[in-house]
């Protein structure tokens, strides 16, 4: 890391080479200091506060807070919603990125824009559109009511809103990678006689598996933590349609701080587990190329790719 302002000894022209970092030590320390203060104030302290508040009342208060049937039902609902929304978005995200990344077709850009829509739209709107569609006075409301199907202010509405909000995560991770990888490997596989599905399972999917996993993890984190859109369609029925984030707000508003922070600590723990999984995926995906070419098809594909670089 030593930085020298002197001309390089092997530099015959004798011109002064600019060092990579020009800032003085003071400026550098100041910048680092600012970053650290920022991280501590905005990221570390709030997280620490959640756990500090959660254990303040002792382990008994924490357990009482979580043992409440309403809290337990909120935890179960959150997990259930994530378990439905994430696999669906995995399938959709993969299909969409395959279509967009590997093919050129009319409406491709439109599809790309549509996938980004949930990122651009405020979660409140995301919730309200479902009220407009499936609410009692919405487009499909009267029909749903005559069929006795409840979507808004019930679990299906929460699932729909969550799927909408977490729509882009998988696709957005996988599309750039597929575009970058191009179609040469798939073409090679087909030339060698592979069927469409074989090509997909043996070539396309292994090439994007880390990006896919990464997208799934982000998707899951958002699915469990989503507040805005879910709040609009939930109806806030205690023990029935409250997800964890909604239940935490309700407990807080009931002055039940011990229980609020107990549930908040569980939600934060789930998020930390997700982040740990993300870090693990990043580490494995970096070390993966060294271990990956165990399968013959990958060696072939590496060969076809090498000359291009």
């Amino acid at each position, binding site marked *: 890391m030593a930085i020298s302002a002197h001309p390089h000894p092997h530099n015959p022209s004798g011109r002064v080479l600019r060092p990579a970092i020009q800032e003085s030590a003071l400026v550098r320390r100041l910048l680092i200091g600012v970053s650290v203060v920022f991280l501590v104030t905005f990221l570390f302290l709030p997280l620490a506060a959640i756990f500090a508040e959660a254990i303040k009342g002792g382990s008994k208060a924490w357990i009482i807070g979580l043992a409440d049937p309403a809290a337990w*039902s909120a935890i*179960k*609902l959150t*997990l*259930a*919603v994530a*378990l*439905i929304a994430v*696999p669906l978005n995995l399938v959709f995200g993969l299909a969409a990125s395959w279509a967009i990344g590997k093919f050129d077709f009319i409406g491709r850009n439109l599809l790309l824009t549509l996938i980004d829509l949930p990122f651009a739209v405020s979660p409140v709107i995301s919730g309200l559109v479902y*009220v407009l569609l*499936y*609410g*009692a*006075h*919405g487009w499909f*409301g009267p029909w749903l*009511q005559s069929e*006795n199907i*409840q979507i*808004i*202010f019930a*679990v299906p509405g929460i699932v729909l809103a969550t799927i909408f909000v977490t729509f882009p995560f998988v696709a957005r991770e996988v599309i750039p990678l597929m575009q970058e990888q191009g179609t040469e490997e798939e073409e090679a596989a087909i030339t*060698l*006689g*592979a069927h469409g*599905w*074989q090509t997909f*399972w*043996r070539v396309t999917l292994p090439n994007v598996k880390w990006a896919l996993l990464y997208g799934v993890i982000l998707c899951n984190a958002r699915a469990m933590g989503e507040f805005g859109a879910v709040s609009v369609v939930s*109806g*806030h*029925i*205690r*023990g*029935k349609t409250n997800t964890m984030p909604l239940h935490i707000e*309700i407990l*807080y*508003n*009931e*002055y039940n701080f011990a229980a609020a922070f107990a549930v908040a600590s569980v939600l934060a723990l789930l998020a930390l587990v997700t982040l740990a999984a993300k870090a693990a995926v990043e580490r494995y995906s970096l070390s993966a190329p060294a271990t990956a070419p165990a399968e*013959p*098809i990958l060696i072939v594909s590496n060969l076809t790719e090498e000359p291009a670089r």
Partner: protein
Amino acid sequence: MFSRKKNLTSTHWRTAANAAIAAVVLAGSLVDPRPAVSETTLLNVSYDPTRELYQEYNVAFAKYWKQKAGEDVTIQQSHGGSGKQARSVIDGLEADVVTLALAYDVDVLYQKGNLIPKGWQSELPNNSAPYTSTIVFLVRSGNPKGIKDWSDLVKPGVSVITPNPKTSGGARWNYLAAWAWARHKYGNDTAAKDFITKLYKNAPVLDSGARGSTTTFVERGIGDVLLAWENEAFLATKELGEGKVEIVVPSISILAEPSVAVVGKVAQRHGTVAVAKAYLEYLYSPEGQEIAAKHYYRPRNPEVAARYASQFANVNLVTIDGEFGGWNKAQAEHFADGGTFDQIYVPGR
């Protein structure tokens, strides 16, 4: 090479299919199945500060109903700003009963949703308001700003916390109580409007419900005075322990009548009309009145009221009908689009 792969491909498929099935089964087991047919479920959609009241009342009613009808009943609760809750019911929140902050919010269920009959208010005694309350001030301990009456709220440097009248029932009572005081004091509506303009200039935030405002004032420590439901003010002093905040009773306030109604259309569909009616009627029983009084609502029952008389300050209370010609008129004049509230309130000042 590909023959081996064919096997692998089907293994992939099987793994993926198994994972998908496992996810669906797990998700299904996590979502509570609909309650068994023998058990009756009621959904009570209520406004913000009634959480504690109905938590206790639901237990008492379930016991009473078990004795009377031999039926187990589970009551589910939903709370939020009164106007917002009414909106949700119109949009399809399946409430069997509503217990909202004011008659107008119940009336929109008739006007906009056609979910209840026109004459809903005469189906239960006392205009379908089983308990009443009023609006008081909550100030910091020792009353550092010396707030005694409405006139003190418009002084420079006094920060007033009140919710948004567009979404909150309590906020509308606050607004009308202030208006009534100003009209009595200055003699006309122009002066009252002037007073209200100054009052809302002193309001830095408008939460969507009464409970949000209480949290803003008490927990976040914002503001010098909170305009609150009497019951909410009592609860805040109790929950925080004596000595952090105190109640100031103004010279004039308003008789707030939180209204209740069976949502006929929904209850009929659920087959819960009888139990929903009994649920609301039991609020008028001595037991129901006792629970309301315990949670600082003013009971209608004279005997229960006499027992709790010392709890409630003797305030000069104006009524919505006498002072403002009823809720429909007050709503149209003050809170509808382009009403006085829209004219006087400019956010961010």
